């Protein structure tokens, strides 16, 4: 897949200006999405994945702001800055206006699926009505045509009796059904790219499986690309073609999915994979990642993962690694941001291993394990 990417994100930076300080939620991430592929964006809560995905549609609101980087979709600049005559950064000429983003991009080119289907659907409108509204807005159809499309789409995502259920309200649907409705919304607008922000986190395992199967089928049928945001490595394994692992606002590893799992290059990814309890193995004790991911207001110096990294050495405290290619697989670069690889020439081998200080964090648990078991519904991704 060496054709022009559908979506290209380069050095995206999104920050939140709060009373407590500036939160660098997304601090320079770069990735691409090609046509027909599903790209994963993985990380713990607070890593910045949701903020990143919202940034793609310029949906970041006060006190948040995209402060740097470039987002290009099919050659159009969704976001881009340049240096103005006064030296200050300003929006580029070719950057789409708010109005253009709203009418041309949101919905008809790039659609979203949110995490919590209960909250995402307006309780006082019928499901069909909401679906129809979005279709009408993003495709050139009349009200009646849009309604027909809506019913068809409901059927497509596997909702029985779509004609009747069109006139029902969200509270009359089960969680899984509601999520199907959200998927229907996304697909019905016929976008080229769908951003799925933890769509299965709030669902129980069996339903999750069904939804993933559905998405797989639909993706094959329509050829839509996906950015799949999740904290669940199991889901990543099932559905993604390529994966970006995020930690504290940065991408620390980027690879095709198989590569990521079998030839992991970053200690964080390794730790994530190790921490998952596996039903086919009995272990004496679980292997969580020590400590907690710190807040994005004041990240650790050097490599942001070094306080929790089992392979950390003295040099890791000083050097902040960029995401560089450290291997190649099937013509695709495998990138990682870890100085222990040869691609980084900073004297890792000579450096002294770091003593691990126990992380003391008052509120959260020390077990930061990422597990495929869906946590309580208030577990995932809400703090982003």
């Amino acid at each position, binding site marked *: 897949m060496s054709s022009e990417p559908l979506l290209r994100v380069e050095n995206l930076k999104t920050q939140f200006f709060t009373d407590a300080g500036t939160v660098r939620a997304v601090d320079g991430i770069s990735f691409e999405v090609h046509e027909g592929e599903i790209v994963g964006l993985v990380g713990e809560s607070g890593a910045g994945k949701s903020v990143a995905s919202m940034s793609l549609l310029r949906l970041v609101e006060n006190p948040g702001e995209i402060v740097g980087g470039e987002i290009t979709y099919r050659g159009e600049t969704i976001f881009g800055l340049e240096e103005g005559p006064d030296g200050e950064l300003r929006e580029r000429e070719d950057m789409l206006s708010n109005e253009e983003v*709203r009418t041309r*991009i*949101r919905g008809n080119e790039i659609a979203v699926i*949110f995490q919590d289907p209960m*909250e*995402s659907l307006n*309780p*006082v*409108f019928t499901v069909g009505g909401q679906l129809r509204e*979005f279709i009408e807005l993003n495709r050139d159809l009349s009200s009646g045509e849009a309604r027909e499309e809506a019913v068809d789409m409901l059927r497509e995502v596997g909702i029985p009796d779509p004609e009747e259920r069109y006139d029902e309200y969200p509270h009359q649907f089960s969680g899984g059904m509601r999520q199907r409705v959200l998927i229907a919304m996304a697909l019905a607008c016929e976008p080229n790219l769908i951003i799925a922000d933890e769509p299965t986190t709030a669902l129980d395992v069996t339903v999750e499986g069904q939804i993933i199967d559905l998405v797989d089928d639909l993706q094959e049928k329509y050829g839509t690309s996906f950015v799949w945001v999740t904290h669940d490595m199991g889901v990543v394994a099932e559905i993604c073609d390529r994966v970006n692992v995020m930690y504290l606002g940065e991408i620390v590893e980027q690879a095709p999915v198989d590569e990521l799992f079998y030839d992991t290059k970053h200690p964080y990814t390794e730790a994530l994979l190790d921490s998952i309890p596996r039903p086919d193995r009995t272990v004496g004790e679980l292997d969580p990642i020590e400590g907690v991911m710190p807040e994005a207001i004041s990240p650790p110096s050097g490599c942001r993962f070094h306080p929790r990294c089992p392979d950390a050495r003295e040099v890791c405290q000083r050097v902040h690694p960029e995401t560089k290619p450290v291997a190649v697989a099937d013509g695709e670069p495998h990138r990682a941001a870890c100085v222990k690889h040869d691609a980084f020439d900073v004297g890792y081998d000579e450096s002294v291993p770091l003593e691990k200080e126990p992380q003391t964090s008052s509120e959260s648990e020390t077990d930061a394990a990422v597990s495929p078991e869906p946590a309580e519904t208030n577990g995932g991704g809400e703090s982003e």
Partner: protein
Amino acid sequence: MGLLRYTVYRFIQAIPVLIGISILTFVLANLTPGDPVRLMLQGVEADQEMIEQVEARYGLDRPMHERYLDYMAGLVQGDMGHSFHRNRPVSELIASRIGPTLLLVLSAYAFALVTSIPLGILAAKRRNEPFDHVSRIVALLGVSTPSFWIGIMLILIFAVQLGWLPSADLVYPWWSPEAYGHDGYVEHLVETIRHLLLPMIALGTLQMATLMRVERTQMIESLQGEYVKLARAYGVPERTIMRKHAFQVAQLPIITIVGLNLSTALGGAVLIEFVFNINGLGRLFYDAIVQLDYQLIMGITMIIATMFVIGVIITDIAYAYIDPRVTYGEAE
């Protein structure tokens, strides 16, 4: 169950409450230490014979529970007793005075709703901007100021000082224009409004302030909802989001609050009718209390309480009808 059945169900449910109200009122009215007749006859020249007559008339020589049952028996037939000091049936008095009170209360509500909702929405939209701060201060003042004082101030400014508006009485639109000497219906309407303006604002300010705060809070919450984010993500224009997606969800609790506020409004009507010398139920209540006119007091209290209960039922039904999440099986 259908809407109709639910309505009936609620009304039936209200009956024990209404009975409870009658008992409570009755007990209250009979709490007086000392001789009730003497009290009622205060200021009236009365000899022993008259006292005994009154006692017999009101059955005050009989035990309380008997009197209560008598009263209830009469009530069911529409007889609410007899006003001693005015020498007319209570029900007649109430019927003649209920119109002005309804006019006052309903117009106060109208005033409150018409002003509070747009202002609340605007405040939410311009959150933390100057407009928001000003409106919040105004709302705070509104809930902190006694309604009768607002009435007095309004009279002082607009009637006494400026002479623009009348300081007392209401013009009843259901009377003929000729009765007032008005030239046709237009003048009649204008005069109605002129007389209604100050009392309406005085009574409605508290409501307005309360509703404005709630509306603002509700809109802010609604605008932060996931469904609004979703709508934005699909390219819905901001105006539509405000008007449709955020607004409709936000209104639901307002309906309930409007119903509950009826209690305060009815109490406030007593004060406002006093200040503006309006011949409504509230004024009648005041007069009855001052004269310790037992049965009249009981009658008015019961009617007002009943009005409140009915008002709440109406708003609850409206809420149940509008909110699709509510099924009519729920009792509350």
